[in-house]
Structures are given as structure tokens and as C-alpha cells.
């Protein structure tokens, strides 16, 4: 594996909890080029031709294996678009850890747009974990625009955990999913913005098969002068169950717009949306202060818990 510098290593820890080379299959992308790759007997990683990106093929019935594909950028002004396709074979059960860390100390914007497509076979189970992180105090922005597309065959199950807590100036997240009969999708998004940051998160989920279900839950905190938009649309095109939830805390001068979108095209579709936006509850602060915390410490604890 190519030697990473200390900044790159720190980013890698932040986005993938990686201190050394991960077990299982992996591809580490640093400053726009591959810094290390390993395929395993059941998981094959190859480069795409024509565009940047990877093809990851997971054999049917592969069990308890993981794929790590972290990206780190520590170069100011680097802009890249990467296309990664995951083909998850029938009956497989795998964990996929992606994530992108940008450290920008320079004056030019750094940007990573990752397009991830998942083709999940019959009865397969994928747990996908994606963490985004930005650092560096240069004037150049840290920009991440992830696109995630999920195509689920019958009875497959996708769990997606997407976290962006710190340092990303501008983000437009787009997540699309299409589910066949009996397929199940669970999304847990955690988002915190501060300063002048701007984050837009859009979901478009189509429940096409009988008995399919989706549960999309976003918890977010907007501090400083930051701005967020949560736009979640679920279409029920068959007897199915869909639920979206946006639960947000606003602080300082933060602003949040939640746009619920439910579309029922089948009388047997059951769709729900919940949204709650507000500042930290006063009684929560008071309770923690009676336990000896200062107001600022109490806020910290409440937010940490909320974004857990």
C-alpha cells in the first residue's frame, strides 16, 4: 500500500475508523488516485474504464465479509467525480463502509462527487455506512455531493447509515431507491451543519413491489448561520409501507426546511411522514443543569445524544 501522510491518515480514521489496512476487501483513494486495493475470493474490486471509479462484485451467498472504500483528499483545488458500482449477489450478507474526508487548508475549493450505485440481489442483506468529514481552515470550500442509487431485488434488505457531522461547507445529497416485492430499506441520516454551511438532502424512494417497505429517518442539527433542506419523497406503487421522519434541532440563526412528499398510487399503500423542528427543549437543559452541567455543557450532551 502506498504510504499516506499524517493528514490523510487522520482523515481515514475519521471517515472509516481505520488505523491500519482493513480486513477484507478494500480500496483506498487518496488525492485522486488509488493508494491501495485488495480483492478477496468472494469480493472483486476492479477499476472502471473510461471514468474514474470502481466495480465491486460480491459473489452470491458471501457471508460476513466487508468492503471498505474510503476516499481522502488533502489537496486544495482538487475536484473529482467518481462512479462506484456495487453488485451484491443473491443471498449475500455484507458490510460496506464508504466515506470521504477532505482537508482543505488552501484557498481553492476541493470537491468530491461520489456516485454510488447498488444492485442488490434477491434476499441479500447490505449494511452500508457512509461518513463525511471536512477539516482545514483554508478559505477554499469543502464540497461533497454524494449520489446514492439503490436497486433492490425481491426480499433484499438494505440498511444505510449516513453521517455528516463536521466541516463540510456545501453538500447536496441525493438518494434514490427502487424496491421490488418484499424488499426493505432502512435509512438513518445524521447531519450537523454550522457556520455558513449549506446542506440539502433529497430522497426519492419508489416502493414498486408488494410487501416492500422503507423507513427514512433524518436527525439533524443546524447551528450558526447554516441552512438545511430535507426533501424526502416516497412513492407507494404497490401494497407497501413507507415512513419518513425529519427530526431537527435549530440553534443560533440556523434554518431548516423540511419538505414531506408522499405519493400513493395503490390503495394498499400505507405512507407516513413526521417532521419536528425546534430548538432544544428548555426542560432538557434545566434537567442537565440541575445535575451540575453548565448550559453549554448541557447543550453539548443533548446534541451528542440526539445525533448518536
Amino acid at each position: 500500500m502506498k504510504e499516506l501522510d499524517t493528514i490523510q491518515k487522520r482523515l481515514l480514521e475519521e471517515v472509516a475508523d481505520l488505523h491500519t489496512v482493513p480486513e477484507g476487501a478494500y480500496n483506498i483513494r487518496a488525492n485522486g488516485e488509488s493508494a491501495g486495493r485488495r480483492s478477496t475470493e468472494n469480493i472483486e474490486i476492479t477499476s472502471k474504464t473510461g471514468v474514474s471509479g470502481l466495480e465491486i462484485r460480491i459473489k452470491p451467498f458471501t457471508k460476513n465479509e466487508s468492503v471498505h472504500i474510503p476516499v481522502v483528499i488533502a489537496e486544495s483545488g482538487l475536484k473529482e467525480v467518481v462512479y462506484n458500482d456495487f453488485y451484491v449477489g443473491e443471498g449475500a450478507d455484507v458490510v460496506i463502509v464508504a466515506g470521504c474526508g477532505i482537508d482543505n487548508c488552501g484557498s481553492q475549493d476541493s470537491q468530491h462527487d461520489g456516485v454510488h450505485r447498488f444492485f442488490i440481489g434477491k434476499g441479500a442483506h447490505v449494511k452500508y455506512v457512509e461518513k463525511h468529514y471536512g477539516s482545514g481552515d483554508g478559505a477554499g470550500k469543502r464540497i461533497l455531493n454524494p449520489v446514492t442509487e439503490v436497486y433492490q431485488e425481491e426480499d433484499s434488505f438494505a440498511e444505510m447509515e449516513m453521517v455528516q457531522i463536521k466541516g463540510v461547507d456545501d453538500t447536496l445529497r441525493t438518494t434514490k431507491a427502487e424496491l421490488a416485492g418484499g424488499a426493505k430499506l432502512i435509512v438513518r441520516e445524521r447531519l450537523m451543519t454550522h457556520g455558513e454551511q449549506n446542506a440539502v438532502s433529497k430522497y426519492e424512494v419508489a416502493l414498486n413491489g408488494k410487501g416492500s417497505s422503507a423507513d427514512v429517518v433524518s436527525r439533524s442539527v443546524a447551528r450558526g448561520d447554516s441552512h438545511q433542506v430535507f426533501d424526502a419523497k416516497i412513492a407507494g406503487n404497490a401494497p407497501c409501507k413507507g415512513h419518513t421522519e425529519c427530526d431537527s434541532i435549530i440553534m443560533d440563526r440556523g434554518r431548516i426546511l423540511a419538505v414531506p412528499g408522499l405519493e400513493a398510487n395503490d390503495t394498499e399503500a400505507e405512507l407516513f411522514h413526521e417532521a419536528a423542528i425546534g430548538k432544544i427543549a428548555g426542560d432538557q437543559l434545566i434537567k442537565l443543569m440541575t445535575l451540575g452541567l453548565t448550559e453549554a455543557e448541557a447543550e453539548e450532551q443533548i446534541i451528542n445524544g440526539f445525533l448518536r
Partner: protein
Amino acid sequence: MDILELKNVSFSVADESSAKEIVRDVDLSIPYGKLIAVTGPNGGGKSTLAKLIAGIEKPTEGAIFFKGEDITERSITDRAKAGIGFAFQQPVKFKGIRVLDLLRIAAGRKLTVAEACEFLSLVGLCARDYIDREVNASLSGGELKRIEIATLLARRTELAVFDEPEAGIDLWSFNNLIDVFRRMRDGMDGGSIIIISHQERILNIADEIVVLKDGRVASRGSRDDILPTLIGTSAAVNYCVKIDPNGR
């Protein structure tokens, strides 16, 4: 000197048209090393008095002294750090904060899981089932209430104020709760406990009873003097009568 002294404390809230006096000219001293029960009719001002002690409300008149020091203008945090603990009548719910987190915050240090479990066992919760639970609406009223009591036990403050700790707690746990308070009283080490309660069995373990009515101290004295005057009034409710109004 007493551990806590309220001197001519009044508290009123004003809306557009009128002012409402909720606590009126209360003079109250709580000695070191005593268990004091505060009772009285609903709406008498008991919870408001507790909030004034904890600093959640500030008196509109009068002064509050803790261990001889005037704390009237001190913040909630300062009072908590100085050694005042308060268990709410209505426990607060959180999102994502676990029982273990709350106990750790209360203890002011990173309690081990075993240590945290001990506090939960004291209030009759099978600790392993609860330690990782979030302190949210998925817990029942009685469970939240017991966790609230456990957090105050974990704080080990010199002055502990419990606001109706028995509310919503089942009969079996109630017996244990009495034991907990008894043990606290015996091991107080100079500290004091104030329990706001309507339950005869809690009043029964108090050294002194204060009756608060219409925001005023209506009477105060030793248990033996006050308790007989309360029996049969709404201030003291026999536990069994309360859960079975026909007394069967």
C-alpha cells in the same frame, strides 16, 4: 446554622391582567442531618418551592441560604455544584441520551457499568435491561420516575429534594423505595433530604413534616405532632386506599 434557609420567600407570576402569588412569605429552615417531608393539597406550591430551592425559579421576594451562603442569585448549575440535588415530579425525556449517560452525568464521573447498575438496583430496576435504554418515551412513567430517583442517588448531594418520588410507582417497588429513603436517612452523614409527598408511609419516616397550603406554611413540626392532624385529610393518602378506592 441550618443547611437550608428560606427567608420570607415569595414567588408570583404575572400575566397581562393580574399577578398570582404562588409562594407567599415562606420562612423555612432545614437543619443538617434531617429527613423533612413536605405535604399539602394539590396546587399548594410544593413543586414551586422545590424549584425555588434548585434555582429553576427565582424568588420575587426574599432570600435563600445554603450552608450559610446567600444563593438567591446563583444559577441552577452553581447550586447543583454546591450540593443541591433535585428529582423532578415529572421526569424529563431525551432523545439518544441513555440511562447510563444520565447516571454518569449525575455522578460527575465515568461510572463503570457495575456502579451504575447498583443505583438502578436500588430503585428496583433490573439494571442490565435498562442501562442502554434511551431516556425517552419508550420507558413507562414508573420506569422514568425510578430512573429519576436513581440519578439523584448517584449524585450523592448534601441536600436532596425529591418531588413526589412515589408517584406512579407500583406497590412492591414502593416498599423498596421506603427502604431506600430510610437507608439514605440513616447514612446521611450530616446531609438532609426533603421529600415532597402525599403518602402516609413516607411522612411516617420523616423527622419533621411541613404542610404547605395556598403557598404558605400552614403548619410544621415533628412527625408525631403533625401526622395525627393530617390523617383522613387529602394531604396524607394511605397507599392501599389510593390504589383501591373501596379499600378491599
